[in-house]
């Protein structure tokens, strides 16, 4: 399967093909009704509410709009509009036909959407309830697992199942295994039985094993679900708000050479497998729903487009242009806000930075005169694998007195934690509390090249005579290394310290899935993924490795 047209990530409820979003006061219904003929790529039918990337992009759009456009919503019911089937999970024919990087990228995006749902429950007071009104398998159950509560219809036939291992020879890739034992605390022996049973578990046993929270009779199912949602809404700590803000289309300009947004320029250098992503700082007076929100949406969109559509561009160079003072002033408006929107913007920027953290591309931050790596934007540099700061005048104007600097602010000290629960500075200086204390004293003022080096905040600070050569050689050298080894190395270096649900999903689970996807037992001509639905049995290489 190859895509000919680039994938886009902006959607609107008016044009959803696969979902229905209904808001009724403090409760929203998000009903899955997948259009069988609506696959993102030709070659498969999306039967039984199975999903592909296109379905999930709409799902993601809905979760974002619920947070920004519907601040009054305190509980979200995820259910199916089809009879007797909740969701059959990721479409198998799509997976079987997809190239490796597409499968992996798809898993990554769906995971990020599921994590976003949990983030909404935890930090936005929008609690998700899965109303499982029919059979629920694989990725379908993983959608349910992302919700705070799982209600299963008690019809004596509907099941929840993770049949990937027995049927497909792969893993439940959207956090399924991890959430079963870590989040729902299913006993590991029962989890083992569950995850190896192709038919899954129904009714009372599902409750006893903690796979679901409650059984709900078929008759009066929707009413019961709604009342549960209202109960959860009543417990919500969502900050009060009358009116949301509209997430208007971004309308970027797309060319063969890159993407231009209002605050972001993305440029491609294909011969060198390079993307330059330049963030433009704010202008004008700080507004709450101004620059930072718009920038975050653009950054989110840019990351997703690049990840999906440009797998060959393996190194992203992160730059900024603008006034660091203005960045801090704009950021301050959001940081000091105690309202729902400030909260949403901060968490959205946090999730977007996390998306950067788990992006399997080399990230290099270039800090040059005229850049504005301050506070929240400095987090971009800390998300990068290396940071280079130009110690000297701008390259094209050697008489200029302008010098590059970086500025730490409150934003760098815990506002935007990574998936491991630590700030990027805590991750950078893991276990070195004295150093973090020192850094905290150096906040809110521009740090020169020499100071940035001394404080360990940049990898290197070449001067104007060396700059171009050093950067060229670093980037060229990078491009010559094995992309697979780099992916593995970067993912290991980026996440120090404690394991969390997220680090386990993106690290452990994804790594295993990656490996399993490329093995003949899954993807070979006689592998389970290929033979699924053909009536033929998969042939396994029986050696355990």
């Amino acid at each position, binding site marked *: 399967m190859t895509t000919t047209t680039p994938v886009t990530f902006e959607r609107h409820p008016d044009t959803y093909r696969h979902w229905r979003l209904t808001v009724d006061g403090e409760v929203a219904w998000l009903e899955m009704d997948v259009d069988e003929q609506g696959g993102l790529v030709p070659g498969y039918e999306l039967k039984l509410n199975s999903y592909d990337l296109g379905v999930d992009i709409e799902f993601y759009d809905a979760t974002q709009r619920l947070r920004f456009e519907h601040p009054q919503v305190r509980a979200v019911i995820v259910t199916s509009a089809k009879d007797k089937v909740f969701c059959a999970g990721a479409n198998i024919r799509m997976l079987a036909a997809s190239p490796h990087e597409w499968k992996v990228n798809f898993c990554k995006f769906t995971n990020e959407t599921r994590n976003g749902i949990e983030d909404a429950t935890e930090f936005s007071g929008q609690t998700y309830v899965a109303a499982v009104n029919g059979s629920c398998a694989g990725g379908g159950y993983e959608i349910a697992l992302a919700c705070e509560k799982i209600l299963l219809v008690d019809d004596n036939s509907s099941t929840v199942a993770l049949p990937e291992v027995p049927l497909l020879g792969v893993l439940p890739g959207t956090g399924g295994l991890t959430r079963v034992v870590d989040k729902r605390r299913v006993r590991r022996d029962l989890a083992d039985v569950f995850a190896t049973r192709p038919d899954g578990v129904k009714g009372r046993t599902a409750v006893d094993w903690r796979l679901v929270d409650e059984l709900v009779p078929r008759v009066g199912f929707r009413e019961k679900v709604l009342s549960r949602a209202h109960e959860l809404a009543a417990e919500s700590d969502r900050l009060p708000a009358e009116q949301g803000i509209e997430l208007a289309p971004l309308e970027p300009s797309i060319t063969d050479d890159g993407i231009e947004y209002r605050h972001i320029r993305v440029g491609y250098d294909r011969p060198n497998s390079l993307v330059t992503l330049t963030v433009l700082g704010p202008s004008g007076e700080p507004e709450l729903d101004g620059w930072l929100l718009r920038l975050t949406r653009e950054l989110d969109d840019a990351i997703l487009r690049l990840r999906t559509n440009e797998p060959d561009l393996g190194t992203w160079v992160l730059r900024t242009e603008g006034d660091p003072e203005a960045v801090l002033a704009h950021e301050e408006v959001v940081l000091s806000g105690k309202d729902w929107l400030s909260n949403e913007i901060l968490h959205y920027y946090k999730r977007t930075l996390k998306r950067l953290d788990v992006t399997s591309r080399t990230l290099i931050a270039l800090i040059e005169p005229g850049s504005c790596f301050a506070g929240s934007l400095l987090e971009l540099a800390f998300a990068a694998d290396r940071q280079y700061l130009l110690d000297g005048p701008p390259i094209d104007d050697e008489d200029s007195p302008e010098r590059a600097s970086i500025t730490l602010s409150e934003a760098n000290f815990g506002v935007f934690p990574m998936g491991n629960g630590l700030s990027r500075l805590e991750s950078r200086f893991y276990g070195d509390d004295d150093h973090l204390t020192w850094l905290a004293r150096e906040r809110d003022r521009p740090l020169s090249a020499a100071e940035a080096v001394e404080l360990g905040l940049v990898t290197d600070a*070449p001067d104007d*005579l*060396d700059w171009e050569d050093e950067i*060229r050689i670093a980037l*060229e050298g990078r491009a*010559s290394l094995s992309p697979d080894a780099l992916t593995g190395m970067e993912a290991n270096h980026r996440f120090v310290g404690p394991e969390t649900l997220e680090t386990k999903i993106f690290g452990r689970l994804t790594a295993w899935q990656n490996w399993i996807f490329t093995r003949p037992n899954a993807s070979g001509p006689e592998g389970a993924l290929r033979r699924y639905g053909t009536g033929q049995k998969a042939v396994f290489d029986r050696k355990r490795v």
Partner: protein
Amino acid sequence: MPEKIDYDAKIPNNVHLADDRRLQRALEGWQPKFMNWWGEMGPTLETEGVYLRTAVSVGRDGWAHFDHVNVPDYRWGIFLAEREPDRRIAFGEHAGEPVWQQVPGEYRADLQRLIVIQGDTEPASVEQQRLLGLTAPSLYDLRNLFQVNVEEGRHLWAMVYLLHAYFGREGRDEAEGLLLRNSGSPDAPRILGAFNEETADWLAFYMFTYFTDRDGKYQLGTLKESSFDPLSRTCEFMLKEEAHHMMVGTTGVDRVVQRSAELIREHDTYDIASHGGIPLDLIQRYLNFHYTVSLDLFGSETSTNAANYYTAGLKGRWQETRRKDDHKLTDDSRLLDRPREDGTWTSEELQAILLLNLDLRGEYTADCQTGVNRWNKILADAGIDFRFALPHPGFNREVGINSGHHVTPDGSIVDEATWEAARHKWLPTAEDLTFVRSLMHPVYERGKIASWVAPPRQGINGKPFDYEYVYLT
């Protein structure tokens, strides 16, 4: 205002030094350290002027200028051979592409390593030879020693230039490191073993300049083929100067053999030690030692590093462009003689690309043989039956497939005890070294020469032997 430095006058060059701020700054940091190093590690003997050749351009005629120079004022310069505008990569996977004028990021580490290793050998020989000025057999020889030393110094500059101009801050650090390591230093020795050996006497000096500098010639020859054009051009020009060092070695050994032959004839005995000459078997032992130590410099016979360098286009073969094959070598094979535990030799067929060090060593050995033939001709002309010979390549080796085996000079594999018992017949003994050293009395009178060596047939730059090549203090 600081005084403006006239770089071109101070440092002769053809790399536009006067316009290159980065290079100027790098050299301004490095040059005083170089002068300190020269003061501490350079020739011990002070002079008021040495008749030296200074490279002043790269043109076909008149690239060198001769004059008496106070050695510390020697103008070490930076010269690259002229650029061939359409030069193409001659081998490896990039064959046919234009050569590189910049270091490709992909090969930065490898290229830097190659240049550092080459660079590390250049000041090493200066350090090894620093005491020799005190015992020179003639003013002519003393002058040659200084010439070799300042040119090794300039070759260091050549490598430092590459590090400074193309490798950024790391390159500057490595350039400084070249001055921080010292030959034989227990803390920071030179990178390659042979460059930590002593050159204690003038016979050793002639042997060194014949055998070990000749290794340098072949290494430079492979780097001259490099796809990184500045390295290629630098090495091409270095080879021009290197030829003189070979001449010092070749004619130096010639003159010792010549003198020994005269003494043998005169006294009708091979035992000329008591007559102030160096016996032929002792010369053979020196030859055995310096030849085998130099073989070690070629590295292991099989080398995946060398293969990788070749495939990447970093380092070619000797006279790569004259070779008639596919210049990729992945489909060719060659034979490698390997010693076996049972004392026999076996021949193994391997991919040619894995045997590049052996290929280069083969070229080197053939070249070394011409010197041996030349010295034997002197003996034949004198009616003396003794003949010199290069020992078997497995003899006395610390590096490669023969290390750990005990191979005699004629190629027999013996046990350790047998080998050790005969060692004194093959390699210089402590007595040999003491004896040669006992002959090393300085002769600084114009036109005079020590007892153990014949005067040269020709002087330098058309000057006679009795020219005052060195003004002593």
